[in-house]
């Protein structure tokens, strides 16, 4: 018997009917998501141009657990590759994928727009522009292990949200394709200015180049530590709002009439999604379509309940981007391609499909 069903009708006349009156348990799904994420993450850590065996990878990773001695048989070079190069890269890609997928699901819910994605609505590019301005200004980007880059990116992200929402707003949501048009237009401007700044500052061009194209080839533990203090709390706030996000999928008036303070909730959710996305963009550049592909794939499989959708987007978004980054590393060896190319290849057909479907619905 499915968990959460129980006999109904014992007290009423008529036959007792088995009815699903509870939500299906989340645990089987979450376990599956965790297993996929772990498997992809292990693959991401074990596969690369330097042929480190899977066994050696596991031994190196395990050696950092408390109480496990360092493995003498593994060369220090390999240890360095796994611990200082690949692991931070996998973790940063995972954090970025998880964040972008959760942020995408949040924008889709709040705007009641299936096409919303941090990249397509201009948030990621706005964040990227603001981070680039700080980078080229030559200011100290980090003190005491904290970076100002995520905060600058947050300001850029918020400015973009305000502009596109202002343009596309219809009765408290942004359900039409206007949101995407405004976002893409704003994106073009942000990217153009970012590219201009890049050309004017050739000394920093490598850094900015990777920021514009997006990628994890410069991932370090330090960058991970810059992003996480902002993304973790923001994502937790969003996860706590799963049920509320369901209710927001009613229209604004109905959401209020069942007791939601709609204005405050929107500010909290858009703020959290923008902060999380901005922090990720400030260390990994703009990577599109993750926030579109992952939540929609999950909806197709498990339905629209955000209480399940958000945690699953977190796990599978991380797995997806780690996998995409692995592909970006391995496809064109020995050089790499920007991971944004991989996500665009997966995302654009998906986007066109959704556009076609929502055109009929709108």
């Amino acid at each position: 018997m499915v968990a959460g069903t129980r006999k109904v009708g014992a007290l009423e006349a008529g036959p007792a009917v088995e009815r699903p009156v509870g939500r299906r348990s989340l645990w089987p799904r979450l376990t599956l998501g965790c297993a996929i994420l772990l498997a992809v993450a292990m693959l991401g850590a074990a596969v690369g141009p330097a042929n480190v065996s899977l066994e050696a990878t596991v031994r190196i990773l395990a050696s950092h657990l408390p109480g496990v001695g360092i493995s003498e048989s593994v060369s220090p070079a390999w240890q360095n590759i796994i611990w200082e190069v690949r692991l931070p890269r996998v973790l940063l890609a995972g954090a970025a994928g998880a964040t972008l997928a959760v942020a995408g699901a949040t924008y889709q819910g709040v705007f009641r727009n299936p096409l919303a994605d941090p990249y397509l609505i201009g948030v990621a590019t706005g964040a990227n522009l603001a981070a680039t301005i700080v980078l080229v200004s030559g200011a100290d980007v980090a003190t005491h292990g904290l970076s100002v880059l995520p905060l600058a990116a947050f300001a850029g992200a918020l400015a973009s949200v305000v502009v596109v929402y202002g343009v596309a707003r219809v009765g408290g949501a942004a359900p039409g394709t206007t949101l995407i048009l405004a976002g893409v237009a704003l994106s073009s401007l942000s990217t153009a200015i970012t590219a201009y700044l890049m050309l004017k500052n050739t000394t920093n061009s490598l850094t900015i180049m990777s920021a514009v194209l997006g990628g994890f080839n410069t991932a370090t533990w330090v960058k991970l530590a810059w992003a996480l203090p902002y993304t973790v709390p923001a994502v937790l706030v969003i996860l706590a709002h799963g049920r509320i996000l369901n209710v927001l999928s009613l229209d604004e008036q109905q959401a209020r009439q069942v007791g939601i303070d709609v204005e405050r909730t929107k500010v909290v959710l858009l703020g959290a999604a923008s902060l999380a996305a901005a922090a990720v963009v400030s260390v990994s550049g703009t990577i599109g379509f993750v926030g579109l592909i992952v939540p929609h794939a999950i909806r197709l499989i498990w339905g629209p309940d955000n209480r399940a959708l958000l945690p699953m987007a977190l796990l599978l978004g991380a797995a997806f981007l780690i996998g995409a980054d692995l592909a970006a590393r391995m496809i064109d060896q020995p050089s790499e391609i920007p991971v944004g190319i991989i996500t665009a290849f997966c995302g654009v057909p998906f986007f066109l499909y959704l556009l076609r479907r929502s055109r009929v619905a709108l």
Partner: protein
Amino acid sequence: METLRIQPAETEKRKNELPSSSALLTVSGLTVAYSSGKRSLVALRDLSIAVTAGELVGLVGPNGCGKTTLIRAVTKVVKPVSGEVRLCGDEVGSLPQAEIARRAAVVPQEPLLPEAFTALECVLMGRTPHLKLLENEGARDFDAARAAMQRTGTWELADRRVDELSGGERQRVVVARALAQETPVLLLDEPTAHLDIGHQASVLGLMRALCRDEGKAVLAVVHDLTLGAAYCDRLVMLRPGGTVAAEGSAEEVLRPELLEEVYGTAADVFPHPRTGRPVVAPRTEGG
């Protein structure tokens, strides 16, 4: 009923304004205006009505006379220019949205339901004001939802996706959601618009039963005057511009000369052969 929280101390000084001590919903001197650009459009002007516990009041009037606006003002979706709305004694402007939703539930006109959610999930959304942020629906909430769905004949639809339901089924799901909110006040904006006559009768009959048996106060916008006359204890007729044209029993309100003035069309009113309640029949062209 645990959701009834009347605060006598606060209502004391306003007593002279309250038409009745048991009024769960009182609207006094309410003026609401919508502004579009520099022009402002008055939707309701100095409106006063009251609905007491156990009473089913029908709100009638032509299109655009402010019936929907009144329901929005009662639930703080629009803010009034002047006047006040009280739910169970308290001014709605001072109540948080969740507290308003614990006192008054709404069945909106043409409600949009989120696609891909099931009917049961939509009805459970009515439990929102009773749940804390991190709380999920418990047995108590499922019981409330099931009871509401059984009363509206939608329990068989519990697992169906709402976007696969007919207009009438969706409408009854929304009525169930409002019942699941377990509020002392119910506000219905044309709850019978998409319903066949069988379901029209059962929804309005249900509303009457809720008034009689559970002492709820129900304010229902009804377009079908005959239907309103048959089920409501009292009718309030608004005229364009958002003022009260007439208020009282169906016989007092549904007078041919008043209907002609308010609706701008001639209609015959005669007593129902069996119940004696007024029946309104618009005169046909050349008739």
